[in-house]
């Protein structure tokens, strides 16, 4: 059974927020624990899909800010 704290550490690992020793330990755990590896892969997939939700504002809206910023 995977500890909840390990599941939470996986999220920090995804975002490069773990220190190097903990990252190494987690990587080693994933190599030996297929369930943990599946959770990680699943999270990566969701985050990649989320990346598709990025949006760009209209050029006009940006130009209006630039006009406002002039000295």
């Amino acid at each position: 059974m995977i500890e909840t704290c390990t599941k939470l550490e996986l999220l920090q690992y995804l975002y490069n927020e773990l220190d190097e020793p903990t990252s190494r330990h987690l990587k080693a755990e994933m190599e030996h624990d297929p369930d943990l590896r599946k959770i990680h892969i699943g999270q990566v997939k969701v985050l990649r899909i989320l990346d598709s939700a990025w949006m760009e504002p209209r050029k006009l809206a940006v130009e209006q800010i630039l006009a406002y910023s002039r000295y």
Partner: protein
Amino acid sequence: MKTNYRATDAELLNQYRQGDERAFATLLNRHKSRIYTTAYLILRDKYQAEDVMQETFMKVVDNIKADRYVEEGKFVQWLVRVAHNLSIDKIRKRNKMPIAVTEDGVDIFNQLQFAQKDEDVFGGKTELLKYIREYVAELPEEQRQVLLMRHFAGMSFKEIAEFTDVSINTALGRMRYALINIRKKLSKHQLAYDRNMYQT
């Protein structure tokens, strides 16, 4: 003066303070998408999201020109906080609800109902994109807030914990459930997702 596109936010702010408008343009290009996306995923209205983005960056201009901005190396966090608060204000106005906190000090916005989705904004986008944005917007407020701040605004879990006044494990737990909920919705709609690849 030549703007260095690899300059830090703090360096660009300082250059803009000294009159370099290109430094501000670099800052704007660097962060406009994260602010616009964050605002959109809260408001679900592209025009209001643009308003929030504009108001947020105009606050930057005002603060720099009035020499009110204090550089603490947390420009992005400051930007996101402004955009988040402006977005919540717009929802409050939209819903015509009073600003109030509960007896426990919990901000009432956590209980606000989200506005009806803007059907028009998805025009021309793929079905997946449409669903993803809906799924994020439909998450419980606490989960959505962490997801937006971590994935789209680029704040660390530690910064999010400080911003939302919870422990880092609570912030991580909310993020975990946000991802689980989105995964479930994706599976439900059978959108190119292998449900066997994810465990809760």
